[in-house]
């Protein structure tokens, strides 16, 4: 059976952001600034991607003293393959069309 992709434009934006520097760990707040997604949208998508094994998350000590540790994220190898598959020119055009209609 072929791969069925059930995703949203928000997921595409996040995948695109994560794919820009796929090996670099990124913070949630940085991803929010990069994608323009609100935390209420961003975290459920991050959670789903982690559940699917497309994203890995781990705790990192904060670089500023006295601050609590922070979660960092990056795509797994399957996540990178999936993201590349999703963020193709055809997908971008479809997304842009949908955005224009909305």
């Amino acid at each position, binding site marked *: *059976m072929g*791969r*069925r*992709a*059930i*995703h949203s434009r928000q*997921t595409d934006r996040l995948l695109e952001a994560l794919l820009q520097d796929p090996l670099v760990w990124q*913070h*949630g*707040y940085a991803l*929010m600034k990069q994608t323009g997604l*609100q*935390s*209420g*949208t*961003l*975290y*459920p998508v991050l*959670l*789903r*991607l982690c559940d*699917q094994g*497309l994203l890995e*998350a781990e705790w990192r000590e*904060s670089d*500023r003293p006295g*601050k*609590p*540790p*922070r*979660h960092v994220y990056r795509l797994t190898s399957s996540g990178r393959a*999936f993201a590349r598959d999703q963020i193709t020119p055809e997908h971008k055009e479809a997304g842009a069309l949908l955005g224009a209609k909305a």
Partner: protein
Amino acid sequence: MTNAPRRRFAQMLMRHAAYVMPSGGLDWGSAMQNEMQAIEDDRTALRWAIGCVIAGYNERVNATLQTWYARWALACLIALLALREFFAPVLIFTYRMQYLGLAHFLGLRTAGDDYRRLIPVMDATPAWLPILWAAAGLMYLVALWRMLHRKDGSIGPFFLAFALDLAGAVTAKSIEISTGIVVTPNLLVRAAGEVLTLFAGFLLWRMTRKKTLAAS
């Protein structure tokens, strides 16, 4: 970062967001909470916290809907909707077939407690209308069966049933007007029925919608 009321409110919201996140998502609650500490601007922190509360409740609702008790509660609700659709066809059938004992028993479950009050309405009801209601009831049962067997596409039969029910209700209303008999005089009961149906539809949609990003 300040100790301004806006920041304190944001921190309070974040604690609430971490609290409402389902137990499997505790780590995520802490992640969201700690991330806010890195946000210097109080206004942005507050927006972040509000978003996290929404995300927390979203996850809580999703987790609750996947429990067996939520599934069975919704199953009972859909079964009730199906029963409601079958009620009128059965009452009309028993009356027309002269099973008056059963008609009397069913009539006790109607407003006014007597099926005889509804005789003019039942006489004026075209034969296709009970079939339409029965079809709606059947569609609810199909939706119920698909939901309980975790099969795709339970929402389609559910809303088809709802559409059939609405179509039946419009026809039934014209019959009520022509006969001057209101089957369910209590407007609150009538409205509650429709609200309950839409609520069940919403829950079914939330329960069965795809949360996967990719499925092979």
